[in-house]
């Protein structure tokens, strides 16, 4: 009967109804998409906080290197400016660090935690799939023996197959039911789960930029010429550069 090899293990009886299977597939796809997105967001968040930190560290280095440059020894006013700049940069960095810690705690860690659930869910899906295969295999075996003549050994084998089938069937049904139950629940949980993270993220930034604005308003008042537009600045720089270029000791081009 089973002359086509790939037909082996394919029971004639419909084990899982098509709707169930479709529901399952849909839930599973949703989860897979969610997993991808979570991982991506986790990665991006991590990268962006890293870049953010690196940026403020670079800014600190700008001022620290200038402050340690002997240039400052030559000019008290310059030294004052650099000290102010350095203080501001360090404060900014401290606030940034705090912000990043906060984000780590309220956003990145939860994201990581959330994505750590997926492997066990996937494993469960895999187990269900295995169970389904087992179930199908045994089911087709039972069917095979049922079709055979009811001789003694055949009956023995049929009984054995049925015995084997039962726990497998129960196992599959339990798994199937649980997954169909758990997957939508888990998917739904993302809303309550991530809502606080995003709020915290936005608020952490608000706090940080408020502080940063204060710091740099003060600093700008202290060391910058007030109220210049970019064009004016550019013109001024260009004028200075031209002045430098006009010196005979400066090599042109």
């Amino acid at each position, binding site marked *: 009967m089973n002359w086509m090899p790939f037909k082996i293990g394919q029971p004639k009886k419909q084990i899982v109804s098509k709707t169930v299977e479709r529901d399952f597939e849909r839930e599973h796809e949703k989860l897979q998409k969610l997993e991808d997105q979570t991982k991506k967001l986790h990665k*991006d968040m991590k990268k962006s906080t890293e870049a953010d930190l690196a940026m403020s560290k670079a800014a600190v280095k700008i001022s620290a290197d200038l402050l340690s440059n002997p240039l400052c020894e030559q000019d008290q006013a310059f030294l004052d*400016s650099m000290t102010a700049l350095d203080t501001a940069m360090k404060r900014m960095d401290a606030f940034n660090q705090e912000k990043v810690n906060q984000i780590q705690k309220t956003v990145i860690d939860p994201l990581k935690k959330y994505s750590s659930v997926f492997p066990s869910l996937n494993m469960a899906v895999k187990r269900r799939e295995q169970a389904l295969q087992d179930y199908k295999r045994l089911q087709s075996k039972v069917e095979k023996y049922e079709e055979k003549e009811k001789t003694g050994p055949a009956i023995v084998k049929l009984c054995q197959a049925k015995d084997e089938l039962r726990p497998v069937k129960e196992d599959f049904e339990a798994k199937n039911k649980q997954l169909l139950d758990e997957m939508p629940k888990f998917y739904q949980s993302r*809303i309550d789960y991530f809502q606080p993270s995003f709020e915290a993220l936005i608020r952490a930034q608000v706090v940080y*930029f*408020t502080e940063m604005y204060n710091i740099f308003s003060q600093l700008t008042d202290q060391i910058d010429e007030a109220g210049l537009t970019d064009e004016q600045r550019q013109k001024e720089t260009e004028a200075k550069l031209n002045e430098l270029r006009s010196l005979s000791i400066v090599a042109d081009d």
Partner: protein
Amino acid sequence: MQQRLSSAAQHSEDSGIKRGDLSSLQLIQDFAEAISIMEVSGRPNTSPFKLHKSASTPLRYSGAVKKVAKKNQTKESGNKEKDKQVEYDNASSEEETAEDLVLKPTTDSSELADAGAHRISLRLPSEDSFSEETLVSEERLAEEAKKKNEEEETAAKERQAQRQMMAIEELVQSEKSYLKMLQICTVNIRNSLNNLQPPPPDLDSLFLYTEEVMNVSSRLLSKLEQKQLKPQNPEFLENLCASFLSLSSEIEAAYKEYLWNYNHVSLVENDYKQNEALWSDIIKVVKSAAPEVNATSLSFFLVMPVQRIARYPLLLQTIQKHTDPSHPAYALLEQTANTSIALNCNINEYKRFREVADKYKKTENLTIMDKINRLSTHSIAKKTARFSQYIKHETGMAPKLVDEEFDTLEGFFNILEYGILVLLENVETYLFHLQRLLECKTEEFDFDMDGEKAPICYKEIHTALRQWILPMFEKRMRTLIHKPLCELRDMLVGPKNLIRKRLHKLLDYEVIEGKPKLSYEEQAVANAYKTINTLLLNELPCFNGLALQMIWGMLGTFSCLHRDLAADMEQLFQGFALQLPHSSCHPKEFQEWVETAVLEGARNLDILCQSVQETLNSPVVQPLSPSCQRLLKHLTDKHGSGKIFQVTNTVVGTRDFDLTLTKGEFVALISEFDTRGDKRRWLVDSGAKKGYVPSSKLIRYHQAAEDPPPSPFLPTSGNMMAFRRHSCIPDPQLIHVTSQPLFQVVAAYDFMARGNHEVSVRAGEPVRVLESQDKRGNSEWSLVEARGQRGYVPSNYLTRMPVGTGSLAPPLH
């Protein structure tokens, strides 16, 4: 002819070739012809005086010639070659001689002083056309003076006044025509050149400083005309001098750049000449723009400022010679003349400095081959001398020439350079990280949380952030800080090279410093050192100051950019933060809420994970075959439940005392290592045999699985009932005999013995299992005793019946 000759002579003198070999009259004549043609073409407003003649002119002239010639004999040898060159120059282009003049104003002025009255009288009319008239009248007056002394004096005064007036007029007129020519050049010619297809390359650099020169010239003229004085008025001269003096610094500034650029202009023009088509176009343009002059090149116009600046001293001195020392403006005039000479000197100095600077400030990009090719005995000697001098400094053998001012400047420059480089590097790092931040597309996620405020806000914020706030910040950073900083860095090269070169020249200089008399070359070395040193002393403070200011300004800008960024960001975030569900919460409350929420979420996830793992990952419990169960029981009894392990993969023994086990078999652990202490081989009891098994193939068997008894044969299906009916003939004796009080092994199916080592059993017949495997350890066969007969039956024909069911049996029995 004579008239031409005289004018030519004047001209040749004027052009700085008075040491020329004038004894050759024929030469002069030829030359004069050439010059006069140029004169006529070059000066459109020739005066009517030109036609006057005087018989005495040649006499005077020959006298002058003699005097000059005499003078020349002394330096003839040195000058002959030069003279030839000069003649050549004069014949070919008037401009270049004028340029020569600029290069040697000091020598000119000294020679001016040497030259006697003749020269002055010769010079007086200069190259202007009314020269003839003056000469004529002068001669006539001189003759009359011999007769009448009194008349002579008044007449002389008159003549003086007239000459003075003419000289002044000459200055003014020539200035006007000069300006006019320049205007023609810059406006007409330049525009037409610009319209050429394709426009000549580098055109703008030709006219780089003409604007300034014209500006200063026109200002001079307007100052002269402002007061509306007649040249005859003594105040006119005063005004002229005052105007010139007041503008002198501007004249200097304008002309020095122009003259400096003129070298470049010549180069560019030569380039144009290489391209014949272009050059003929240019000539056409020049001719059509200024048809009244016979100009044959661009430099005909462009050289004019070069000539002009050198002519000021001559013109002024001419005026001075013809001015009575009692004239009210005499002192001022003298000052003006001196100023104009000083002006030329300054310009020359400036040019020299620029040349030295240009020579050394550029970094040479030489390959090793180039360097090797450059080596010569001279250069090696030079380098060795420098090196030895350097060693002497370092070892303290020779005192170093200390210039404290310079050392301070150099020190400042060095730290400035270091500061700029470090700053640039840091700014680049900063920008790099900013770029990285921009690359993080954190808003591009899809959690399918459309109805939720927070993620939507977050997405919008970050889109805005990445689309315009941060890019704008980056752009401002780049244009306002990074770009100028790069340019500043590039500018460090020139001073750096000059400082290095200065040290080299210093080393050279120190060697020759003590010598009382310096050779020509040594003089050049000393000059080079002094020039570089002066140059650096003059300009380095300016450079340092400006660079420091720039850094300072940039940091101010940096701060300002941060402030603006923070302001934008704060506004953006704040705007969205207000829309959030918890926006009214106090930060602290919010903090607590978030933390508890996050913890809560984590806990829920944990619970979920656990439940998934527990229920979904539990293994399927397959029913155990009776023989297995029996074996399990046997092992459990013997070794205790904790020691039971199951074989995960089929093991094939390869060594002595190794066991060969199939998957799923049970073993009991005896020891966790073999005789040699190898923990990977465990000594186990498989029921029949004891031996070693790789520990990796064993897994602990959970007895718990037995707790809910697998009970595969519990009567749940109809089929099973049929079997049960058969199994319900328990033999109480046999039950008694079995080692298992709870279970009785019975034959599940009929089995017919096929040989004398097998035994026939009927379904339901109780049997006693003696061995659960055959002699070869094959567990498919069991040795049983049934009805007193011993023999093998297939193990899977046997089954266990709980004894409890036996008690239910009697009704069926």
